């Protein structure tokens, strides 16, 4: 039995965990400001956060909020924890930054610190490094949040070696952004801070729409 034990949703300058708002910034706060405020509210110190591009910061924060107050990291075999993330724009926001740095031959400044973020799966690496998670990886690109894709593929890997998974959607594209992360386990988690919902398309659609 595969269960969702926690989820977090970040959109419209607001963070919710398991359907309850836990943090928000004022409406006209810019994305970089909002991410910085949300990071402070988490109360962690993680210097690597400040080097990330906006999309990785967003995905990192959403995952931290989903994990916070759970025993997901301590109770799972992290070599069997998969990370499956999707979005629509791949790394387009940072792609544009890199392209801008090479557009003009007289003002040419490509940077490895930017270029490395022109791969969408870097967020998976960031999450893996933070928590020493070494299981399966996959980054899919679909037009919209595709419940079928993410639930079906997560089920496939949970049938094939993996015993837990961090899954979801992480996207920054121009002014639009959204992250939705949920944690899945195959065992029965008895921690009181976890919710307990079966992994299926209906449930994921519900928690996505209601948070």
């Amino acid at each position, binding site marked *: 039995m595969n269960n969702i034990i926690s989820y977090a949703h970040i959109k419209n300058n607001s963070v919710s965990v398991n359907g309850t708002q836990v943090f928000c910034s004022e409406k006209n706060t810019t994305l970089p400001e909002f991410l910085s405020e949300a990071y402070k509210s988490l109360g962690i110190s993680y210097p690597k956060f400040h080097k990330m591009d906006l999309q990785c910061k967003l995905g990192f924060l959403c995952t931290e909020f989903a994990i916070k107050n759970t025993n997901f990291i301590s109770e799972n075999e992290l070599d069997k924890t998969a990370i499956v993330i999707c979005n629509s724009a791949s790394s387009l926001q940072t*792609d544009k930054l*890199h392209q801008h740095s090479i557009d003009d031959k007289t003002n040419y400044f490509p940077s490895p610190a930017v270029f490395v973020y022109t791969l969408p*799966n870097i967020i998976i*690496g960031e999450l893996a490094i933070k928590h020493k998670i070494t*299981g399966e990886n996959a980054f899919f690109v*679909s037009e919209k949040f595709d419940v079928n894709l993410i639930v079906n593929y997560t089920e496939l890997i949970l049938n094939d070696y993996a015993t837990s998974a961090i899954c979801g959607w992480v996207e920054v594209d121009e002014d639009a952004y959204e992250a939705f992360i949920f944690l899945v386990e195959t065992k029965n988690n008895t921690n009181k801070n976890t919710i307990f919902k079966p992994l299926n398309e209906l449930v994921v659609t519900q928690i996505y729409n209601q948070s």
Partner: protein
Amino acid sequence: MIFASYNNIISGLGFSTDENYKAILNSELAVKKTILPFSTESFCVAKINEADLKTHFSSFENTERYTKLEQLSILSIQDVMKQSGINPADEKTLLIYSTTKGNIDLLEKNNASHVDKNRMYLWSFANVLKQHFNFKHTPIVLSNACISGLLAIIIAKRYIDSGAFNNVIVCGGDILSEFTLSGFKSFNALSNEPSKPFDANRVGINLGEAVSTILITNNKALAKPYETQIISGFSANDANHISGPSRTGDGLFQCLNQLGITNKNKIGFISAHGTATPFNDEMESIAIERANLSSVPVNSLKGYYGHTLGAAGVLETILSLESLKNQTLIKSEGFESLGVSGKISVIDSFEKKSFDSFIKTASGFGGCNAAALFSKL
């Protein structure tokens, strides 16, 4: 049972798998010193001949409706459709596309293409292929750095194992662009000469462009080309660094360990990632030794093709299948003397050998690794 079957390679060495396999048996290299339109300095890269592409694509109307990567992908997928007779409109047939950057050239300031700029979105690019071939299902697009191609094959196996599909067409492709060249150059990762995987004098990678397609199927009647199964395949993360591999090869070791190898004497070779950067090749040698596979010969095909990014895992799997079918180990081009500390034996000449199976590996930015085991029936 799940089989690796009909396929196609389009690269600087030709527009079919046959042309490509014959070319490398003749030690032809796709990588060459080339002056590219956007720079006065020369780069050692593998480019697909534009005139050849034009000729091959000339039977299609309105060629300007398609980007270069779309044209190459259409040609490659069409070849596999023709050979296999697969019907894209079938309920149980899926397309998985593996790419790192897709139509990245559409982002260039001076790009003169008339196609909708929206096609720089990878899903939108894949939709062009869906519509062209009339696939029943929306293609799955995987963008997982340099393991994308091999991981797409592993994912195809999983979907077929689950019963959801019978046939998965896996296509991997990336074009040569100023975008990726300037990025790898900023990392000081490029070699100005043909790259030398695992060699003591290796200095970095060559970038290449290619599109490759392979049919993964559970239909035994379609297994004819190789009668070879995908036994197992996994990915794993180093959890170490986003742009450098684990010094101890942790992720790759984990993948290799999970493959369930029962008799390593039957494994003819390991087709490694072998980009020819100092750190990557060193890491792979350590992972291979840790997995107790030092006795299995190793090659890298990057010396012929450079690094073809999203295509690499598919292209290298196909050539490894040819190697298995022909019972011939492929020489690891560019290799002279061992320059890694892990105990490995690099294949330094073409050689006939009797063997049943091979391992394909890949590693990439974001700390990702993948490995798969293929075996004859």
